[in-house]
């Protein structure tokens, strides 16, 4: 236990340090992009978040399958925690995207395949979290595991469909290729590592919190049983 805690402390410190380093790299080290200006810097937050959102949902998908296969409660906890953090990163993607798009594309939103797929992905996992909160105690794990699988399988179908939908109409706005200089690549890598560390740090802590919740419930049940017994003794 203490060993674990020491590891977490170190992990936390490294994550904190990397986040600071990423901030320094983004605002000081990386040059300002010529045509887009300062708004391009949002790219360093946007890209790692997008990757981690997809990665988190992929973990949910795999953990859901393993849960249904193994019936081990731990996989359910991992699937749930990963989905929750994935929704946070997906929200960051959906907020930073339009902020960047407004000055560059001149619109907040376009129904491009990648954007639309991300939006639907976000919806699917918000619904996933909602399903968990309304489902009964004994069905929650099964329902959310099934939904986690259905939702993830749906993503490639959605992407292909929307690509077909949008290529039939002419694309008014296309993403311009961004010329990236070496310091920019360095910055992106640093931001990437920092965000990955942040993700795993959040995931580990969230799982720890969920475990603690179980323990509290267990103890509460135990105490309630005791009180019942006492009452019965006094009554009898």
């Amino acid at each position, binding site marked *: 236990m203490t060993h674990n805690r020491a590891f977490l402390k170190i992990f936390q410190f490294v994550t904190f340090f990397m986040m600071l380093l990423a901030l320094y790299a983004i605002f000081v080290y990386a040059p300002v992009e010529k045509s887009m200006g300062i708004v391009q810097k949002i790219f360093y937050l946007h890209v790692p978040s997008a990757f981690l959102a997809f990665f988190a949902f992929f973990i949910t998908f795999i953990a859901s399958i393993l849960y249904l296969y193994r019936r081990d409660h731990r996989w359910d906890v991992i699937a749930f925690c990963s989905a929750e953090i994935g929704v946070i990163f997906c929200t960051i993607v959906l907020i930073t995207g339009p902020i960047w798009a407004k000055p560059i594309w001149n619109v907040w939103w376009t129904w491009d395949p990648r954007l639309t797929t991300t939006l639907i992905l976000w919806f*699917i996992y918000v619904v996933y979290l909602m399903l968990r909160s309304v489902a009964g105690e004994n069905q929650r794990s*099964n329902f959310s595991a099934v939904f986690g699988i*259905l939702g993830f399988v749906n993503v490639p*179908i959605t992407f292909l469909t929307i690509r077909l939908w949008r290529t039939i109409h002419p694309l008014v706005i296309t993403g311009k290729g961004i010329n990236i200089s070496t310091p920019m690549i360095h910055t992106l890598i640093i931001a990437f590592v920092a965000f990955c560390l942040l993700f795993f740090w959040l995931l580990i802590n969230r799982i720890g919190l969920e475990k603690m919740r179980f323990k509290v419930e267990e103890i509460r049940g135990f105490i309630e049983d005791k009180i019942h017994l006492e009452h019965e003794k006094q009554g009898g």
Partner: protein
Amino acid sequence: MTFIQKVWAIVWKDITSELRTKEMLLSMCLFSFLVLIVFNFAFDTGLKNLRENISGILWVAFIFSGLMGLGRSFGVERDKGTLYGLLLCPISPWGIYLGKMIGTFIFMTIMEIFTLSIFTVLYNINVIPFLLPLGLIIFLGTLGFATIGTVFSAMSATTKARDVMLSILVFPISAPMIIALVKATGIILWGGAIQETYSWLKILIAFDLVFLLLAYLTFGFIIEE
């Protein structure tokens, strides 16, 4: 009893109980009729020919009233306490699923035939020349909708806020299907050849097959308690 006979028994049970009350079919048909009227007011479709919108209106009518039917598919079993009876039947979960899915499919098809005839009159579009390709698209769409809908109907029947939950479960997953259906129907209704819809039909077929397979694999987990 063979597997098919068992599935048919479940379908027949749903049809019989529906024929006795006629509650669900009537309300589904009336609702889709109302959706068509509301959209006529909202878009003023009688004056301008909104090519793209018209197939969308048709599918919104189908899907909204289909959702009503879906909500009742397992909801009624839950309310009347017959869900456990159904689960105790000597049949695999996949059989229960198929029976319920085919029942929903049949009710939706009846509602769609009714809606389509109202649509022909109200929107002044003659659908008779396109009946075959349109029928194929509607068949694939209804099958896909019943496929995912039955899974989610079974899920939401036991949760709180049942009807709301069903809609928000169905819509994000059915997004690709709705796009393909509206596009394909639009092409057909405006005189396009069936060949033009092939890419959309492929998506619809893939969607139906993938989710039927997933339903086969996962439905047992949903109804176990």
